[in-house]
């Protein structure tokens, strides 16, 4: 079996007595768009945080490109090619959209304190490259016109796009999107679906945590369903929609099950 | 015996630190801010107690204590109402709130200097000068009374928090302000009570310290930091930790000053502070919880 881009084995995270994530195995293939769904409180964001390195694992391992990254911190993982967005938006509000995106390029660039003080030609060239790439990333997500606007002043939908631009700008191998469609209307959600497809076409593998079933069903190749921290089901979107256990999990919680949402 | 005197001294100053630490802990729990001006509440209590004694020299120790507590309580409430609450309402960043408390501290210290001058002021004798004998060992009555006051005050606080309705509501607010509010707690009033009590504790500590050593306008600075060290040692945010930390730190400091170096007495607290922040940030209480 070819090596998966990301593999999580027996991943667990406990908070005191509560297992937010309980012995989850996950395999994300290169070039896939892998969805992560489940009722509220199922542990999706916690799992994402474990993969991103924002949270330490209680048990289990995470490997990326064959290397064991379980002990790596978030910055190191970001440098290795794992980038993410945040569910509740963590933008740099006082910086312009362009500068926000440029932070995403910090890890791959090198100019330090001395280079900055001396303003070497190499440093100046690097700065130009950084901003050129940042601008392209903004245009890629559709925010080309907002480059100079302070992130805090952007409308909600644009802020969500900016988070994605910041994560995408470094063209990471793996991009983790945490509920990117939250609060978006139908049109915006459809645009987002197309954007995720373009991100995959650009060479990134995507893991997508999402509640918005239209988006999940239309873009994902594989979907993993979590419930109470455990993996409930896994498979292609169509299979998941018909899975009795999945429907039960959603119905039992009062959430609408995936099949209620039309296939795009 | 010398050892007994040292022990009593350490416990007495420990009580002073505990009271200040309690104030830090309560305010921290309720607002998440480190109240830089806590030491100044101690200082004001000390000065007020002294001024009261100047006016009424025959006043018994308990009354002086109460006067100091009342003065500090009022100042604390004023601080919360005039400055801290507006800051919270404007959703000012935490860093700026801390800076504002630093400003408050500076204001109080310099106001005190203008009001009471820069010379250290002695408290008149509050207690008898002949030593008490406890278990055959002579101990200065000063120390005994301070320990007694300290224990009584801390006991009263515990009773208040655990047995009275207001106290329970205060605890609820400290744990989860939103939920408490949904259940009908008046946040504004609970905040005022929190500051009032923190102020009174500090004020009592000030009178106690003043009667033991002396009062001067800058006394709150170092004592405030030491109270913070005590609170951190016990575990920031824990009331039990604050009390434990205070006593422990008082003993550590007193004994170290004698057996290690007295010039660097204050340094002991600073080194301890940095060490705790770096290696044991959740304090002794955190250590205890981790074991369980």
């Amino acid at each position, binding site marked *: 079996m070819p090596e998966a881009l990301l593999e999580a084995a027996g991943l667990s995270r406990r908070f005191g007595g509560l297992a937010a994530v309980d012995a989850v195995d996950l395999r994300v293939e290169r070039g896939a768009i892998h969805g992560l769904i489940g009722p509220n409180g199922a542990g999706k964001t916690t799992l994402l945080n474990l993969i991103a390195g924002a949270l330490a694992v209680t048990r289990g391992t995470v490997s990326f490109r064959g290397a064991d990254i379980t002990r790596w911190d978030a910055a190191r993982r970001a440098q290795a090619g794992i980038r993410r967005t945040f569910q509740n938006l963590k933008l740099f509000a006082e910086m312009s959209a362009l500068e926000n995106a440029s932070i995403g390029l910090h890890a791959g660039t090198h100019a330090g304190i001395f280079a900055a003080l001396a303003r070497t030609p190499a440093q100046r060239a690097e700065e130009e490259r950084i901003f050129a790439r940042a601008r392209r990333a903004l245009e890629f997500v559709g925010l080309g016109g907002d480059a100079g606007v302070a992130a805090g002043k952007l409308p909600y939908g644009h802020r969500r796009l900016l988070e994605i631009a910041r994560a995408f700008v470094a063209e990471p191998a793996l991009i983790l999107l945490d509920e990117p469609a939250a609060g978006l209307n139908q049109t915006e959600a459809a645009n987002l679906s197309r954007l995720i497809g373009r991100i995959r076409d650009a060479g990134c593998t995507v893991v997508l945590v999402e509640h918005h079933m239209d988006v999940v069903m239309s873009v994902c190749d594989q979907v993993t369903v979590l419930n109470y921290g455990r993996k409930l089901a896994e498979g292609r979107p169509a299979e998941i929609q018909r899975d009795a256990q999945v429907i039960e999990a959603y119905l039992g919680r009062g959430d609408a099950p995936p099949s209620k949402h039309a296939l795009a | 015996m010398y050892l007994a005197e040292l022990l009593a001294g350490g416990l007495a100053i420990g009580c002073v630190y505990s009271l200040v630490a309690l104030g830090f802990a309560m305010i921290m729990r309720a607002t998440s801010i480190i109240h830089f001006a806590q030491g100044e509440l101690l200082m004001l209590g000390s000065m007020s107690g002294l001024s009261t004694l100047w006016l009424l020299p025959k006043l018994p120790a308990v009354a002086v204590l109460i006067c100091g507590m009342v003065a500090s309580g009022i100042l604390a409430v004023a601080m919360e109402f005039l400055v801290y609450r507006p800051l919270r309402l404007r959703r000012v960043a935490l860093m700026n709130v801390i800076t504002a408390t630093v400003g408050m501290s*500076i204001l109080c210290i310099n106001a005190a200097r203008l009001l009471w001058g820069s010379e250290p002021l002695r408290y008149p004798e509050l207690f008898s000068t002949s030593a008490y004998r406890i278990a055959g060992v002579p101990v200065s009555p000063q120390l005994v009374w301070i320990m007694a006051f300290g224990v009584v005050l801390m006991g009263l606080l515990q009773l208040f928090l655990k047995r009275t309705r207001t106290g329970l509501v205060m605890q609820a607010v400290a744990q989860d302000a939103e939920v408490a509010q949904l259940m009908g707690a008046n946040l504004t009033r609970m905040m005022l009570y929190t500051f009032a009590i923190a102020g009174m504790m500090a004020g009592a500590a000030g009178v106690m310290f003043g009667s033991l050593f002396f009062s001067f306008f800058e006394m709150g600075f170092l004592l405030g*930091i030491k109270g913070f060290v005590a609170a951190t040692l016990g575990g920031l945010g824990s009331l039990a930790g604050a009390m434990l930390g205070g006593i422990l730190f008082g003993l550590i400091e007193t004994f170290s000053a004698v057996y290690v170096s007295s*010039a*660097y007495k204050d340094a002991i607290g600073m080194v301890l502070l940095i060490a705790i922040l770096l290696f044991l940030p959740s304090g002794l209480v955190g250590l205890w919880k981790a074991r369980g």
Partner: protein
Amino acid sequence: MESARLKRSLTGIVLLALAALPLFEPHQFVLHMLSLVAISATAALGLQLLLGFSGQLSIGQAAFYGIGAYASGLLSAKLGMPFIVAFFAAGVIAAVVSLVMVPITRLTGAALAVATLGFSILVYLVLKNEEWLTGGSFGLMGIPRASLFGYVLAKPTYAYLLCVAVAAGVYLSLLRLQRSRFGRAINAIRQNEDAARACGVKVTLLKSQCFVIAAFVAGLAGSLYAHQVRYLAPTDFTFWKSVEILIMVVIGGMGSLFGAVLGAAVVVLVPEVLREVGDYRMLIFGAILMVVMLFGEGGIAGFLEQCLRPFSKPRA
């Protein structure tokens, strides 16, 4: 005119005016006061990097200021080293000592503030108690004037120009840093540490670097101070000095380099200009600190920026 160009022009004009001032033969005392402003501004600029740029509230800068002052004073007075050596050594020594404190950059918010406070007190106690080294409470006397390449800067004019040159050098260097990859990264850290980490920014490393740079700059300022007043006492470097530097940054405007300089000017000059204010100085500053925090951290620089906004166009 574009906002950045406007600022640069203003900076240039101010620097020119400061350099040209001696031509008007001001009184010796004025030059001395302005030298002190430049020295304080240097220290304040260091804190601005730490607090305004990377968001770390340090109220212990006086420790490095004092270490720099005593180091420079001792090296030149006791060991006869030339000023330039003592000057840079002061910065380096302060920076090296700050490495001891680097572990505390893991801390945030008030915990960091208190740790720096504790450190500041420790340094003060050492300066006061180690008489064999620092002269203790008696102080360190007989520090020679600054000198460049053997030529003693005996006239107040030259000392003044030296201080302004150092302040300007630090200012321009920090300006460059601010506009660089490093500056953007620490700005990001200040605004959202988690997000910065998720972008691959090595948060603790960068915070530590800011700490060390700020200490270095404070050390340089201390050296200039030592050779300006030529007598040091531990009481010059208590916690209150740290607070004074903090006040300069806050009054001037958090995050603004120009603000740090303005703040230094205000804190040093106002008590001199308004003599009656002298006693109430700290009282007023304490009140100002609270007021500025209540009404936005822009300080004087922020206020000026608001005034200039109608005349400038933002950079796209």
